């Protein structure tokens, strides 16, 4: 102890200058008190570490499973792999819709602070046209801020390289490789192929409702209209997915697992795209529609609605200017006239009336009636186009010269109920069930229809006088070109009816195995062959010696046809003179045909909106289509409207 004190004095003489017994005692006391405090401190340290240990055990033992899951979720991102969309081909294998991969420049608005500035700087590197900006603006308004939206698509390799070198200046902007849908035929067949477009809110809720959402995660396009829409399920395929390890910045580090996608099925259409082109060309500047059907199968050979539009505009979201142009054009290029246009059939209705007359036993083919040039019904005079009439007219002649009086009296004789009943069996007034959406049913007039159509009780009653003009395809009659073509095909096929369809085969993209679509007849009409023969003969007569003769002069095949003219504008008794009526009020020209007569390979219906007389405007289009389909003859120019010949159109 003395040594200790000595040392202590030596070392710290200033600190402990005085040393005495009491202090020594005191020091020992404080020392043991200090030891106690040290023990307490040690205990505290131990307790604190036990607390930490408990916390670690809680996280690492009790909650371990939960946290390992969280860590895996952090690390692994499920990236959907989009399937490649099925290709659409025509019956000869010509590609109508396909995919190509290209680079797009995409912006995620939520990651960009000053969008306008970014766009301006970007346009210094990559050409961004005003229409790209407009389209982008529209897309932004339609989508959520965290979605990546294309500002430019189909970048050139040079543009890709230029952006890549400067990408650090553009957070939130990136280049992505994407599969693009492309329609190589452009405007040709646009109405039937349709297009795909960006998935919008409506599409999303539809997908959600049908439980297909899982297959669309990460997808941004969907079929919007036409074949693309109707066969979406087949074309889409099944999305695969990739398990990707990502870092905290979301960058993919490596792929852990890969479930490949199943590509969509290819579609082979019954359409002959060359025929379609011939038909579209034949229309020239005219508006209208043409549907050509293979009678023996119901396969649609051509499905024309003029004018068309370029479906490629829609793939990436159409820019507002183009949209307004298309949507507000008086030509209505977006209207699918073949499917949704409803027109009075005019005189093309007569062959069906004639068949109805025979089948119902109302009038035999040989019955000949005098035609004074008008029909007086209860004081109201219904005129024939030819003043003075056609003389004595039997069924053959009634079709060939398109005698109105013959059908006025026939309609009166049959009554509206019988007409409606028979026409309904041919599909008039109901949807044909073709494989694209949005078909209109048309109007097959009948007392019941009128009751439903009008609210005012005074208008609900059917007047017998209304039946008269139904006989010549006027009045309330209103059908789509598709219905007319369908009925013509059924007539050509002697009552064996096939549901019209655009898709012939569905092809597996891997194996190439083809599954045919709807090969069976949907209905067989129990028509007497001799009744049908009369109609076929009469329609052949139209093209040989009747209203279609000029259009079909010199044809090396036999064909059957019927001209028609549908009134757009009631002249209220005044004489219709083409030149004096504004173009959009001119009559619609119609023509139905099938050929060859003996074993029809093609049946069609043409309507030329405001084309005037069917024989002049519509029949030449039919001639070009038949010439190409049967002979392989191509004209490559619009069908020439035949010069005016009073004899001819007077009988339409």
């Amino acid at each position, binding site marked *: 102890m003395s*040594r200790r004190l000595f040392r202590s004095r030596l070392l710290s003489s*200033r*600190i402990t200058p*005085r040393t005495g017994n009491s202090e020594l005692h005191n020091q020992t006391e404080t020392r043991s008190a200090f030891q106690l405090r040290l023990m307490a401190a040690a205990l505290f340290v131990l307790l604190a570490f036990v607390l930490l240990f408990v*916390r670690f055990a809680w996280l*690492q033992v009790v909650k*371990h499973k939960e946290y390992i899951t969280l*860590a*895996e979720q952090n690390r692994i991102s499920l990236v959907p792999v989009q399937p490649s969309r099925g290709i659409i081909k025509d019956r000869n294998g010509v590609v109508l819709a396909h995919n190509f991969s290209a680079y797009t420049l995409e912006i995620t608005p939520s990651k960009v602070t000053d969008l306008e500035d970014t766009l301006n700087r970007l346009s210094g590197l990559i050409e961004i046209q005003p229409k790209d900006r407009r389209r982008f603006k529209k897309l932004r308004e339609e989508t959520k801020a965290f979605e990546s939206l294309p500002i430019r698509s189909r970048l050139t390799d040079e543009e890709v390289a230029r952006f890549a070198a400067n990408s650090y200046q553009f957070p939130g902007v990136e280049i992505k490789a994407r599969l693009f849908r492309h329609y190589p035929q452009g405007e040709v067949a646009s109405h039937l192929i349709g297009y795909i477009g960006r998935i919008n809110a409506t599409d999303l809720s539809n997908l959600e409702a049908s439980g297909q959402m899982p297959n669309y995660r990460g997808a941004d396009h969907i079929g919007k209209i036409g074949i693309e829409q109707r066969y979406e399920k087949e074309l889409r395929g099944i999305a695969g997915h990739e398990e990707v390890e990502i870092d905290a910045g979301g960058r993919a580090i490596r792929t852990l697992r890969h479930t490949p996608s199943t590509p969509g099925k290819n579609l082979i259409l019954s359409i002959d795209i060359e025929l379609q082109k011939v038909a579209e060309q034949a229309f020239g500047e005219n508006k209208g529609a043409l549907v050509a059907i293979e009678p023996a199968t119901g396969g649609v050979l051509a499905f024309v609605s003029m004018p068309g539009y370029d479906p490629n505009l829609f793939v990436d979201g159409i820019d507002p200017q183009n949209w307004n142009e298309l949507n507000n054009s008086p030509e209505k290029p977006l209207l699918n006239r073949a499917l949704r246009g409803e027109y009075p059939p005019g005189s093309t209705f007569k062959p069906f009336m004639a068949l109805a007359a025979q089948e119902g036993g109302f009038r035999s083919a040989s019955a000949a009636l005098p035609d004074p040039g008008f029909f007086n019904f209860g004081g109201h005079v219904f005129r024939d186009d030819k003043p003075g009439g056609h003389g004595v007219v039997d069924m053959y002649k009634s079709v060939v010269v398109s005698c109105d009086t013959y059908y006025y009296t026939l309609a009166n004789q049959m009554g509206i109920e019988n007409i409606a009943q028979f026409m309904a069996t041919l599909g008039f007034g109901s949807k044909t069930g073709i494989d694209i959406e949005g078909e209109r049913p048309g109007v097959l007039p009948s007392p019941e229809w009128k009751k439903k159509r009008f609210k005012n009780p005074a208008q609900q009653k059917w007047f017998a006088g209304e039946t008269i003009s139904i006989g010549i395809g006027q009045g309330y009659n209103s059908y789509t070109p598709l219905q007319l073509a369908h009925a013509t095909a059924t007539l050509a096929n002697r009552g064996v009816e096939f549901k019209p369809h655009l898709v012939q085969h569905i092809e597996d993209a891997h194996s190439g195995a083809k599954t045919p679509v709807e090969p069976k007849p949907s209905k067989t009409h129990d028509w007497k062959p001799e009744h049908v023969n009369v109609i076929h003969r009469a329609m052949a007569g139209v093209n040989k010696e009747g209203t279609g003769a000029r259009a079909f002069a010199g044809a090396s095949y036999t064909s059957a046809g019927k001209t028609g003219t549908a009134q757009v504008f009631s002249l209220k008794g005044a004489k219709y003179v083409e030149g004096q009526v504004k173009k959009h009020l001119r009559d619609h020209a119609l023509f139905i045909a099938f050929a060859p007569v003996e074993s029809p390979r093609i049946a069609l219906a043409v309507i030329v909106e405001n084309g005037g007389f069917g024989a002049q405007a519509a029949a030449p289009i039919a001639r070009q289509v038949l010439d190409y389909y049967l002979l392989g003859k191509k004209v490559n120019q619009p069908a020439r409207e035949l010069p005016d010949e009073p004899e001819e159109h007077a009988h339409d």
Partner: protein
Amino acid sequence: MIKHLWQRFIRNIDPWLLLFTALVVLYSVLVLYSASNRDMNRIVNKFVFFGVGLGGMWIIANIPQQMLMRLAPPAYILGVLLLLGVALFGEVTYGARRWLNIGVARIQPSEIMKVALPMMLAWYFQRNEASLRWKNYIVAAGIMLLPVAFILKQPDLGTSLLVAAAGFYVLYFAGLSWKLIGAMTIIGSGIVIAMLDWDTCNRVLHEYQCQRIATMLNPMEDPLGSGYHIIQGTIAIGSGGILGRGWLNGTQTHLDFIPERTTDFIFAVLGEEFGLFGNIILLILYLLVIGRGLMIAARASTLFGRLLAGSIALTFFTYAFVNMGMVSGILPVVGVPLPLFSYGGTAMVSLMAGFGILMSINKDRQLMKGG
């Protein structure tokens, strides 16, 4: 001859403290290698820091204790003056006035106080050892609160609490009445509980400080913002399980999910890759360091030595506890590195300096024994 020189050289070095310290540092190198994505530069630097720290430690260990004692008041006064300088001319970074530019370097005087304050207090108690009264504790409290108030004003709540703790440990070992400690504990807990309430907290503290408390209570409120650190830290630790995911195999670590993973959050890397097992090893190593520090305190010859050694040991414990508590989500996030473990030169050197002081205190006892 060489042997003799060597013995003179290591005469004042405590082998146990050195061993435990070296084990912690080596352990940290293992983790740092993984946390830094095998960055050899960091490893070399870490050893350099440790080497410099060892040098500092050796120098301080060889300073006689009464010299340390004599240094205490000037160090303290200098520290307070520098803090005053900070308050008047300090540089503002991130809204806080913490740094002082003294021409050659930018210094953070609050760091000096971490050592200067306990030294000053120990010196003060030593001076009044013979006649300790309650008024001495009041003066001591004043010595302690002056720098703490300055630091609190900067504002730097974390450092001010750590400095206050270092000072408080001296008071505690000097015999601060248990009743008073009990009362302070109750009041302190009351304040802490009151701070848990957002509105009350905002009346007293800065919003960012209250945000940290709120984040600790519910990190999921803002998982990508203020809660991100703590969420990713706990995920890393929790996913480690008992044996860890293996060295260099932590996904949280290697895919950048753990922020500041070589510095303040290095413990999350340890927890992820070495699991509960690895954590326990670190706890044990820390216990050994702290235990050795307390042992040195127990054997110290002077009151100054006892108080200072005790305070240094407990301060070391405090750093370790606060860091591990923060990374594992039981304490709010404050900028305290894991002692000896986190990457960083300043902290390493100042900790080693602290161990130098411990050894300096320890050598008196050895001399006494040997003599």
